[in-house]
């Protein structure tokens, strides 16, 4: 069992948990993820490692299905059944280059740790974070601290620049030579935004989030098509060359359990939590 030391709501439907998990924290690096299982009957879900402090790891998630709702109910002092990780390959870290780190929505959660790691390797780091509206903007301060320059956008113009992260990225690469780009966000955002760097041929990484079970390369649930080949995102990724990813397949496979997810959420709300006893955890 792993204890929650901090639980906070960061934005509309976006939550932060800090968990004591020394075995994950010790060797965790930027770009990796962990898998949590809240209760003995819980599902295993992957979450990006958003920050590491000593024995503690932070994850940030949006409430979407039953498991994330259940996670959002946790408060400091609660226990989580299982935390496994770190999983996946760490981000590739260049040196003395110019890098842009682009986060969209809850995907911003993954950005500060990457930006910080890049900065520590003597790179110039430009941050671009975008959200639908001001209520969904997260981690602006952390990103400001980690980056040499930060651009903030909202789709509806309610905060920062009016527009998409892709628009800003276009301007940035027009103005200076950018060597590497990371784009992390919803699949559709990664697909659209990575088109910006395709023609100029800028090496671009995206972090893929297909449905996973074990996260150790044993089931193939997380398979994605990269450069026409089947790869397992949990062990071969989660970061891949953006320009080789089949995003349409990814989005199609992310929807496999839409119906079941609705059913689980209904069950969760009826029972107040996802555990087998149906008891309410106060």
């Amino acid at each position, binding site marked *: 069992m792993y204890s929650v030391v901090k639980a906070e709501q960061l934005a509309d439907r976006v939550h932060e948990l800090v968990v004591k998990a020394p075995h994950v924290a010790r060797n965790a690096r930027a770009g990796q993820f962990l898998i949590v299982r809240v209760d003995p009957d819980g599902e295993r879900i992957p979450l990006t490692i958003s920050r590491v402090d000593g024995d503690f790891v932070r994850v940030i998630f949006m409430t979407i299905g039953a498991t994330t709702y259940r996670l959002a109910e946790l408060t400091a002092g609660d226990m989580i059944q299982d935390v496994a990780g770190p999983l996946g390959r760490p981000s590739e870290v260049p040196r003395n280059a110019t890098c842009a780190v682009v986060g969209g929505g809850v995907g911003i959660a993954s950005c500060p740790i990457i930006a910080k790691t890049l900065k520590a390797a003597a790179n110039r780091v430009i941050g671009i974070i975008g959200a639908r509206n001001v209520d969904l903007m997260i981690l602006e301060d952390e990103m400001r601290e980690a980056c040499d320059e930060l651009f903030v956008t909202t789709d509806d113009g309610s905060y920062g620049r009016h527009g998409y992260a892709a628009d800003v990225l276009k301007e940035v690469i027009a103005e200076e030579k950018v060597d590497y780009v990371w784009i992390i966000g919803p699949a559709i955002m990664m697909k659209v935004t990575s088109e910006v760097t395709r023609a100029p041929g800028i090496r671009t990484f995206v972090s893929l989030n297909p449905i996973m079970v074990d996260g150790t*390369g044993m089931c193939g649930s997380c398979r994605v098509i990269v450069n026409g080949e089947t790869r397992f995102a949990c062990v071969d990724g989660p970061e891949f060359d953006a320009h080789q990813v089949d995003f349409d397949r990814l989005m199609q496979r992310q929807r496999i359990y839409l119906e079941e997810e609705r059913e689980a959420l209904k069950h969760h709300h009826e029972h107040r939590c996802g555990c087998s006893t149906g008891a309410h955890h106060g």
Partner: protein
Amino acid sequence: MAERSPGERILDFSEVDSGFTAEEARSEAERCIQCKKPACVSGCPVGVDIPRFVLAIAEERFDEARSTILEANLLPSVCGRVCPQETQCEGACILGKKGRAINIGALERFAADRGEGEELGTLVRAPPTGRRIAVVGSGPAGLTAAAELARSGHSVVLFESLHEPGGVLVYGIPEFRLPKSVVRREIERVLALGVELQTNTLVGRSITIEELLAYDAVFISTGAGLPSFMGIPGEETNGVYSANEYLTRVNLMGAERFPAAGTPIRRGSRVVVTGGGNVAMDAARVARRLGAKVWLVYRRREDDLPARRDEVRHAREEGIEFVTCASPVRIHGEPAVTGVECVRMEMCDLDESGRPSPRVLDGSSFLIDADTVIQAIGTSPNPLLVRLLEGVQVGRRGNLVTDENGRTSLPRVYAGGDIATGAATVILAMGAGKRAAATIDADLRDAPAH
């Protein structure tokens, strides 16, 4: 040993039968003629003293039967249920030459299932050696090696990447063949020897290679968990599973209780399983229990099915439709499966395995109207750790190459089970774990402290 009716079985995940009663066990055991040179023992990869435990059952000394087995085999309730006895101990039984071999598997299960905990007293631990050993992967190979090393007085850490120990025993083999409570009890026994278990720990990621090699010795038993896909068009369609994924969702995660358990599974009403081994039978029978109509498509003949004999019989009784001499060539549907196109195969010249090799019959394609496909065509050794171990000798199938005593090409690094052999059996994995443990023990005694 009455089996439950197929109609009743497919409604739940309980075992097919409840094993021998004491009376049945005794009378089966009495048939044993106590050979002077027992062929059955040489047929057993871990060398259980079969005549001795069978005699003990015949004489109703059931506790002694159990402790006799435990001396050689720490997972007897598991082995009694899942070993391919027909090709091992029972296959070698003299009585089988003319009539019916002794049902050694059922006797083993009978003796092992009785009593709880008290046998631990018979498993002595040598005085502590001060040596620290890492065992990576808690399937049958890792469990056996860990137990043997602990008995030799070494301090053992058993790393497991999943949240539960047991490897294929917990994520692969279904409850109706191997109840989880049985596996847990046997694992408890291993841990009670003083083995320290660390779950949720993926070696290579949670533990670096440098940290791993800081142990006095390392035993790698990470299994053959990497699922193969056929590579036919349509495999990325929603509703196509590897058997590992399908079985894990149910066995490890409890998807049959969704939404009370959090993990979903497609409750396909029409399921095609491809393959013919134990894994295929298990997947087919799980799908049947989730309410599906199931076709099992296998490219060779019925007689060639590599699965345990009983599993094939049980699958057939439970209404699985066997489509032999056939092979899928394309999965139809977008975004979800709507059908599987197959072709007929004809059997040609014998290949190196002594079986006829299948060849596609031109113009024989046919469609099975299905909404779920489960591929059970094999798995290969887990590549993660193998790739990270710089300089280790790797075989053609991605397996770790070892000598007959479990040594890899790297000093102080040993391996056994499916990671070394490719997908094989529980008992072969256990045998490898036992042999490697003996090698490690001997090597460490010879070597100065690390």
